[in-house]
């Protein structure tokens, strides 16, 4: 497996795992409160729709000329990656609430109970909430699968990495029988942001006609550089937001918000 393919698998796997954790929380909440069969029907319908989107847009993207494809994919990955990174940096500085799966689960359970009594048979509420949750969380993953996969003409490999992440998250959810609250989501989102921004920068510049020193090996410099800059921004923001007479905030177990090389 080449370096670019390893980056593809890692980026898609991490992005998919973190979105799957969030979708799992929603499905668990409506499944346990309302109806498992209706919730799982919603999951199946959303997964099918996502597969159709990937299958329909994949060939369209891969038919673009390589330079045009790289500019489009690079630009989109950069816009996406910078959003992921900015949010992860703000979370690590305490300026944005961290995603709390247990809180989300409680909120979804309360909403499901408030939605009225459930009649036997198909439960429209459980179906709709599961369908929407999986579709919305999955769209971003479908986009990452498409852009990374199309650019390297390895959409099946990207889809396999996404499928592996989903299977592992479902298995962990079944084992825990609860939301996966201990997954270090911010660290994972930080890592995904670094990967998307790095590959976006690499492909975007190449598509625009620039030549990286060392060709593909330039990624070995770009990824650490993005990591260092993002960590430095997170560090400086944490320092700026901490009152000067207070000690540093205690680190959260398993989710420090930044990653090391």
């Amino acid at each position: 497996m080449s370096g670019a393919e390893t980056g593809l698998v890692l980026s898609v796997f991490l992005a998919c795992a973190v979105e799957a954790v969030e979708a799992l929380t929603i499905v668990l909440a409506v499944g346990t409160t309302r109806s498992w069969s209706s919730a799982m029907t919603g999951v199946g319908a959303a997964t099918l729709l996502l597969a159709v989107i990937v299958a329909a847009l994949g060939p369209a993207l891969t038919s673009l000329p390589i330079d045009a494809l790289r500019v489009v994919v690079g630009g989109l990955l950069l816009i996406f990656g910078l959003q992921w990174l900015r949010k992860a940096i703000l979370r690590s500085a305490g300026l944005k609430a961290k995603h709390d799966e247990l809180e989300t689960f409680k909120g979804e359970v309360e909403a499901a109970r408030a939605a009225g009594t459930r009649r036997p048979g198909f439960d429209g509420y459980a179906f709709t909430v599961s369908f929407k949750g999986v579709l919305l969380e999955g769209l971003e993953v479908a986009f990452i699968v498409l852009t990374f996969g199309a650019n390297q003409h390895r959409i099946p490999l990207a889809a396999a990495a996404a499928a592996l992440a989903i299977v592992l998250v479902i298995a962990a959810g079944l084992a825990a029988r609860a939301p996966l609250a201990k997954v270090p989501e911010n660290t994972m989102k930080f890592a995904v942001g670094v990967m998307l921004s790095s590959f976006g920068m690499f492909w975007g510049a190449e598509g625009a006609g620039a030549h990286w020193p060392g060709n593909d090996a330039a990624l070995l410099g770009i990824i650490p550089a993005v990591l260092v800059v993002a960590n430095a921004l997170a560090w400086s923001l944490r320092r700026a937001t901490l009152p000067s007479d207070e000690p540093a905030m205690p680190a959260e177990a398993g989710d420090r918000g930044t990653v090391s090389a």
Partner: protein
Amino acid sequence: MHIRALFLSVWEFVVGDDWRTALGVVLALALTSLLAETAISAWWLLPLAVFGLLALSVRRAAREATARSEVARSGSD
């Protein structure tokens, strides 16, 4: 109405809540393309622009978050 809603959904999905960064990325790619047409090496432009855009975006968001928390604090006083 449906077309407008669809456009807004796509905009929200792709651009997110910081259109300035998205615009900056597009401009940086265009500038890289122009520079690549000349004899000057162009690879350095995009990293420089991206790091600058990220720093500005984080600074803007941090200012907005701080302002929001100050408004909330003054409201509760």
